[in-house]
């Protein structure tokens, strides 16, 4: 029997192909990186917790509310909260909605298909009728513009979809931080393995959505729809947010004649893995909101590190973004390892080759990404 050995990859990013094949993350392994990644994921976990709670709250309690003035209050409206809201001393839930809308817009996965299915439309129409049953104006408006409230309902489904997805991610990141504090996380590979394990564990977790209107429950996404965590929200999320993203008005011209934005959504490269961290904090750069939210929840060790590098507090959002990008490459590594067609430790040549093709095709997309910069620092 002839044992065929897989030759080294000739891909421009061959280094990362090989790392992934060995079950290692794309991010270089050193203590500095581990500290930064775990620290940032801790604060990200806290922020995601808030985002997720809010998205779920909006989906459940603000169903088709056309003037959701208090949608960021999570049901707790009082003078103090209002004061904080007006002083902008709060989490920037706008960013969560921005991610939700990007995900909704880019589509893909089972959730995207399900909100177009007759089952969903049927339940949605019942829910809409129930929601506006005493409002002939809205009902006639909905007749005039038949997809108006239906599209809003789809968006509500995405609210809850992303909310439930982030619920899992938040818990996973906070657990990672706890394990790091307990001394169990020593390398970037440990980080990736932790994430991979959690993703696999929750892969089949069902995503469901029901609203209660007038005492009746409407199962917009029943468990029977088979919408699952990993394939129907996780993968589309990674695709929409990490890879594609949306063009930032602060760095890309929307001028149609200048044709800076490609006509195909699938060729967008504005996602978290590609974005240049330097413009963070400037005008027209939405991720600034996330960096701003995370700055409040940095663990002490990370805060100390930022304090003594660069301009300490003044450019902290750029530094957070640089660190965040590192962590996102770890998460992406874990996701790719989770999605790889064959086990990584397979001895079968064909399987290895399939894995190679799989990784190389993803690396093709990562050529213009920040991966080299992330590993330079």
């Amino acid at each position, binding site marked *: 029997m002839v044992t065929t050995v897989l030759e080294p990859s000739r891909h421009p990013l061959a280094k990362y192909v090989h790392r992934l094949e060995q079950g290692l993350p794309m991010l270089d392994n050193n203590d500095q990186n581990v500290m930064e990644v775990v620290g940032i994921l801790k604060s990200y976990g806290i922020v995601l917790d808030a985002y997720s709670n809010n998205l779920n709250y909006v989906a459940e309690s603000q169903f088709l509310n056309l003037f959701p003035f208090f949608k960021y209050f999570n049901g707790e409206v009082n003078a103090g909260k209002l004061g904080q809201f007006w002083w902008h001393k709060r989490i920037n839930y706008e960013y969560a909605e921005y991610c939700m809308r990007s995900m909704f817009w880019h589509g893909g996965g089972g959730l995207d298909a399900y909100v177009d299915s007759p089952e969903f439309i049927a339940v949605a129409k019942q829910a809409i009728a129930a929601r506006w049953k005493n409002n002939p104006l809205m009902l006639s408006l909905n007749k005039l513009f038949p997809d108006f409230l239906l599209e809003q309902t789809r968006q509500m489904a995405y609210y809850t979809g992303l909310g439930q997805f982030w619920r899992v991610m938040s818990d996973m990141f906070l657990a990672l931080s706890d394990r790091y504090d307990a001394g169990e996380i020593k390398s970037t590979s440990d980080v990736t393995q932790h994430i991979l394990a959690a993703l696999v564990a929750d892969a089949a977790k069902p995503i469901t959505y029901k609203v209660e209107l007038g005492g009746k429950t409407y199962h917009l996404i029943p468990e029977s729809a088979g919408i699952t965590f990993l394939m129907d929200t996780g993968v589309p999320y990674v695709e929409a947010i990490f890879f594609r993203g949306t063009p930032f008005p602060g760095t890309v011209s929307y001028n149609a004649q200048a044709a800076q934005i490609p006509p195909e959504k699938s060729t967008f490269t504005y996602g978290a893995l590609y974005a*240049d961290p*330097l*413009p963070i*904090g*400037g005008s027209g750069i939405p991720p600034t909101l996330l960096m701003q939210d995370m700055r409040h929840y940095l663990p002490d060790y990370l805060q100390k590190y930022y304090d003594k590098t*660069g*301009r300490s507090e*003044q*450019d902290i959002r*750029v530094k957070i973004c640089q660190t965040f990008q590192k962590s996102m490459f770890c998460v992406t590594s874990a996701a790719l390892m989770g999605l790889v067609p064959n086990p990584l430790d397979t001895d079968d040549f064909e399987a290895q080759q399939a894995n190679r093709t799989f990784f190389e095709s993803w690396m093709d997309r990562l050529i213009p990404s920040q991966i080299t910069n992330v590993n330079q620092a």
Partner: protein
Amino acid sequence: MLSALIWLPLIGALIIAVIPPAENSQTPRNIALVSSFCVFGWGLWIAINYDVAIAGLQFAEHIPWVEWLGLNYDIAIDGLSLPLMVLNGLLTLVAIWISSKEIHRPRFYFALFLLLQASVNGAFLAQDVLLFFLFYEIEIIPLYFLIAIWGGKRRGYAAIKFLLYTAVSGILLLASFLGLTFLSGANTFAYTALQNTSLPMASQLLLLAGIVVGFGIKIPFLPFHTWLPDAHVEASTPVSVILAGVLLKLGTYGLLRFGLGLFPEAWSVVAPWLAIWAAISALYGASCAIAQTDMKKVVAYSSIAHMAFILLAAAAATPISLAAAEIQMISHGLISGLLFLLVGIVYKKTGSRDVNYLRGLLNPERGLPITGALMILGVMASAGLPGMAGFVAEFLIFRGSFIAYPIPTLLCLVGTGLTAVYFLLMINKVFFGRLTPELAAMDPVNWGDQFPAVVLVILLFIFGLQPQWMIRWSEADTAALITPTAQVELSLNSLQ
């Protein structure tokens, strides 16, 4: 009282010179700060006590000195010199404030700065032409050293060039002053005495030519200006601030006081040519500025263009234009001081002034956003944005000069239009766009460095919104400059 403006900084300089040198000591800087603060405060106090209602010299001091020569220590202040004296006080304070704390040979440096301030104040206050000349010459020496020792790579070249030009300027002035005294038979150099002499037109023209060219080198006008861009490029930021903000004003001040003031009849003869000269100089400065790639050179050529407006106003010699010339001196002093200060910050942080290299400095986290914002306001003031001092000065210059010389005035207006062109080309290249990775590691600017710029911007706004606060000092005296020369033709068709 006035003498304090000259002697206070000299005493300060002396103290700095005699204190024992210490490693890493901030003492010289602190002494210089205190001294210049006192001088500025004293200047303000004099301004408050100055009676604007009466035109003419006030706070006069007279000490006989070299009597056989006719040279006396005659100093006084009037509406023409008062604002410039205060400007000198303010900008010297600013310059010392922004001087680096780690500067090498600090004792020499700060002593020179105070010496510079003393001599410039002396020149503004002197009422004896020879005394003026003395101060005018003394001022060259500290400035020469300030450029030659603390300058850039080609500082020696620039310093010598500056020295030669200014020396020629001095020789011409001296020749004219002496000529005036001797030809008129007055055995004194007192300004007021010389004012009342009468000479044949030919001698007047000759003497005036010496004065105009002499001060023209200082101001500077085409074609005597080439020392200025070099000097600015090589000089350190505080020196540039003083050079553009105050020292050039010595030239225009002299032009008004000793050119127009002493030779009114000859002035009215050459005025049409001066107006044309002003227009050419303004357009020339502006078009040279467009082609520059060094931020400092852009500002330097812009100085040439804006100083030419003063020549236009002086040539027109209407009550409005002369008051406007004085305002333009103040506003240009503030604006050019501000711009050089900000360019200095950019240079200090990035190590470059190249408009083709710098990019995206408005970046709020890693760039110089506040500096950029102040710079935008500064160039807008320079381009004559209403609401800031530059507009008042330029509008009044054009309004005052149009009657006398419509075509040169309109050409100068085109020059104002070009100001926006070269400054926006610069601003949009340097501050707009995406910050490049090479520039992403610069140090932040602390508020102390930017504080003087903020003050200057606020002043520009105050004077722009309340122009009377600028005009009130000098209106009576600038009007007095031309009362003896009622024959200056104010016809609408003087060029036709």
